[in-house]
């Protein structure tokens, strides 16, 4: 990893980003960077602005000032769909699979962005190699999958787009502990085997610590600490995130 002023340019960079909903400001000058091939955790309490940060990056929400660059290009000029085609994919909170469509149709929606059906089929085969359960259930209505399978579908759907950066918003939400274990393996595999850089928003700090290289802690729209994952995810940080900022260390 390139720590602290390495030579590689970040693939994703936010500089002094402000954003909010209507007249309610949520982010107050966020700066963060993700290097190619890196897993970065974005941690914080509910309402700290984690999902808002992801929504700004993927252009679901326009920022009011500051800059967001992906691969050196300003994202403000792109539509969310264009950004996806450029290689940045956002797996939203709650997974948001297309419940009424079959598993295979869910995956092939991504095929709309590809030039040919053959290319889409090839990627479909690659994704079902990665997640065999999706191949086995290809004809099943996606809404009938278990939570863990739906999470695999949500990540598999993103992988159909062969992204360079994936934004993962609370992937462990609502999953059984055993399923979270395999989710951690999946995230690590995406990163090491496919070289995907990941910005991970997660409440499950054990999961975040296990997979992430670096981390940022967000508190009411401001980044309050950053560093290597095991430095950021300390007892102090945990109490801050779960008990609120003002209590300080236990």
């Amino acid at each position, binding site marked *: 990893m390139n720590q602290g002023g390495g030579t590689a340019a970040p693939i994703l960079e936010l500089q002094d980003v402000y954003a909010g909903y209507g007249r309610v400001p949520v982010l107050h000058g966020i700066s963060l960077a993700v290097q190619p091939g890196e897993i970065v955790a974005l941690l914080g309490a509910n309402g700290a602005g984690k999902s808002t940060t992801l929504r700004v990056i*993927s252009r*679901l929400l326009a920022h009011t000032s500051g800059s967001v660059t992906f691969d050196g290009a300003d994202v403000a000029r792109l*539509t*969310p*769909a264009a950004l*996806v*085609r450029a290689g940045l*994919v*956002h*797996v*939203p909170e709650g997974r*948001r*699979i*297309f*419940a*009424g*469509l079959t598993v295979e*149709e869910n995956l*092939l*929606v*991504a*095929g*709309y*962005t590809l030039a040919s*059906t053959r290319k*889409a089929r090839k990627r479909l085969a690659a994704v079902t190699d990665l997640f065999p359960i999706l191949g086995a259930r290809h004809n099943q209505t996606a809404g009938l999958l278990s939570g863990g399978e739906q999470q695999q579908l949500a990540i598999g*759907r993103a992988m*159909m*787009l062969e992204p360079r950066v994936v934004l993962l918003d609370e992937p462990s939400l609502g999953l059984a502990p055993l399923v979270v274990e395999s989710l951690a393996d999946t995230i690590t595999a995406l990163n090491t085997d496919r070289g995907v850089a990941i910005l991970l928003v997660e409440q499950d700090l054990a999961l975040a610590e296990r997979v992430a290289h670096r981390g940022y802690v967000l508190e009411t729209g401001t980044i309050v600490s950053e560093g290597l994952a095991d430095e950021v995810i300390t007892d102090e940080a945990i109490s801050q995130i779960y008990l609120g900022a003002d209590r300080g260390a236990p």
Partner: protein
Amino acid sequence: MTNFAQQVVSGVMAGSLYALLALAFVLVYRASGVINFSQGEMAMVTTYLAWVASQHMPYALAIVVMLAGSFVLGCLVFRVVISRFEGRSELQTFVAVIMLFLIFDSIGLALFGPDPREFKEPFRGHPLHVAGITIPIHDLYILASALVIVVGLYVLFQRTRLGLALRATATDRVAAELMGVPTQRMLTVGWGLAGAAGGMAGVLIAPVVTLTPGLMSAVLVAAVCALIIGGLESPGGAIIGGVLVGVIQNLVSTYLSGIVDFLHLPLEVTDANAYRDIATALVLLVVLLIRPAGLFGRSAVAKV
């Protein structure tokens, strides 16, 4: 009994027209959550387009011109007006739709006047007689056209990449956008397809009732009824709803005097059509009261 069968068959024919317009409503509703009450008036305008075109070219070509024109009109209505109301309240969007209704209604009147125009039946010939039931050639044409459109839309939605992207957008617009689907374009296409389906209904009914700016008023009421019966989001429901309304209407106007006699109602049956529309409206009210989500719908009719 033969008369009963005859009325049911004729009702199915009329019902397939209602089904087409109701299908247009479903396409728009599923794409953007709007009930486009101006759909019928848009179809009226494009039916005049077909009528003008048919003076200069063969009928089939005039239909192609009409389909293209009504697709484009649907796209424009969404792009120029409806998309700007995104995120606004349902009441504001509803008012916008009603204003569109008035605008298209006035355009028809301004350009072509109130006088009825004769829109000739494209196929003429002796009616078919099957088991004592008479089926006019134009009715067969209506049924066949409706079937072609329904099957064509089904194939488009279920068997093509565009159709999959349209369905994904209708299911969850944000998730579709995050998968790289240009959802704004998908909504536009949905409105365009609805315009074409509605336009076809206009061209099919015109030879039956003659072409006036009020062409679609009766069809509109019946189609909205079919839409509510079928549930706002179900294409199959819209089709079955349309056929049901057609059959109910025909049976009511046929047996009206019998019903009035049977109930000893102090009514004089002079205009069966008026009673037919009352019957349609009553069916609609009863369905709304008993099953507000429609017979095939999942969501309640909260948007009306």
